[in-house]
């Protein structure tokens, strides 16, 4: 097997807009994509008008446009975060059962989600801290996690306290089992593969240091089982 070093994308760590731009570049032309609530919505700002990407929002719309300006606000037209949005030519509306059939049925190409933790196996934890006084609220997170053909996670690699968020086992309650395909972070991009965690790209850190800080074995180079 040919060993190639992951691309070093220059200075790190990346800011959230840089990560969003990186994800946008990796979304294929014409893909049907759902961007999760929070930071993943930033990806939309980096999709070029010619990308042909069609955004899905789980409250029942394809070809969603940007957030509505003050004079465009229509209470009947919001995204999944209840933010007023606009429609693009070719938009379509549908009810909730159809909207989630698009995910579960394997019709949606990519979803981008935030996360508290991702495990080396691709387990995702992003809906519930598990704290005794927390009110559980899942929304569409579990449906997206197991439904989209590819699940991309966008997150910082470490918590503010320095704890890794890419871990051997998730400590938080799970959203989905073995569902994450790729993890975009401020310090590196990882593929979750049957052989383990593979580093695609690093930003201002080398792989041995990354492995030491994460406490995880990391693979580099071409995958043995290409996806």
């Amino acid at each position, binding site marked *: 097997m040919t060993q190639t070093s992951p691309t070093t994308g220059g200075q790190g760590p990346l800011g959230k807009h840089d990560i969003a731009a990186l994800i946008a570049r990796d979304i294929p032309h014409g893909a049907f994509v759902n961007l999760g609530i929070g930071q993943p919505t930033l990806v939309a700002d980096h999709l070029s008008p010619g990308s042909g990407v069609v955004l899905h929002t789980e409250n029942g*719309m394809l070809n969603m446009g940007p957030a509505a300006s003050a004079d465009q606000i229509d*209470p*009947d037209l919001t995204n999944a975060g209840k933010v007023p949005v606009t429609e693009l030519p070719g938009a379509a509306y549908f009810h909730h059962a159809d909207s989630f059939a698009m995910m579960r049925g394997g019709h949606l190409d990519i979803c981008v989600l935030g996360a508290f933790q991702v495990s080396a196996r691709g387990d995702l934890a992003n809906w519930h801290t598990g704290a005794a006084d927390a009110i*559980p*609220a899942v929304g569409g997170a579990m449906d997206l996690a197991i439904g989209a053909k590819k699940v991309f996670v966008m997150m910082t690699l470490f918590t503010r306290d320095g704890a890794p968020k890419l871990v051997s086992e998730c400590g938080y309650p799970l959203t989905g089992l073995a569902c994450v395909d790729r993890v975009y972070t401020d310090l590196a991009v990882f593929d979750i593969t049957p052989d383990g965690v593979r580093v695609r790209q690093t930003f201002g850190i080398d792989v041995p240091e990354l492995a030491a800080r994460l406490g995880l074995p990391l693979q580099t180079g071409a995958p043995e089982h290409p996806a």
Partner: protein
Amino acid sequence: MTTRLCAHADEAVADVQDGATVLVGGFGMAGMPVALIDALIRQGATDLTVVSNNAGNGDTGLAALLAKGRVRKVICSFPRQADSWVFDGLYRAGRIELEVVPQGTLAERLRAAGAGIGAFFCPTGAGTLLAEGKEVREIDGRLHVLEYPIGGDVALIGAHRADRMGNLVYRKTARNFGPVMATAATTVVAQVREVVETGEIDPETVVTPSIFVDRVVQVADHS
């Protein structure tokens, strides 16, 4: 049974019983049948189970019904929001029961009730807290969770336009849970902005056919 046009929302919800399961349409405030909920508050039915995507926003609509102490249990996907203080307070005080259901599973359980499906296996939530106590089966190498239908005694939904027969058209993302809930309750009440003569809605554009709709009330707007 043909659809009845009601002159006032109070008439449309007059027979809701204590202990009823009430399906409430809307995603946040989009499609929320506020006039019907306000009428249900005046009507006084209590000990209700409410099925809705959220557990009320601000102090109006579903939040107002909760604030009156009329709801025993909420079945929803996403109760916790920036403006869900009414639900949050009741929940923390132990005064309301909560069943959290993944959003797509909620829609599909409603759909199953309306379509006469006894139960279904769904991959969503397998291996998570929300599958605890439920039967799990491996199908095609993937874990699936057995999910049962959720039907209602009453559905309160918001639509954009009805004809006199009760055919419904929705508007933009305010459609959300309306068409599915319209199939899933014994009595379905639709709040609409406009009632037009029979024949004025292009049959090709009808989203909820009149067979699912029992009562229609025209309300100037959902606000």
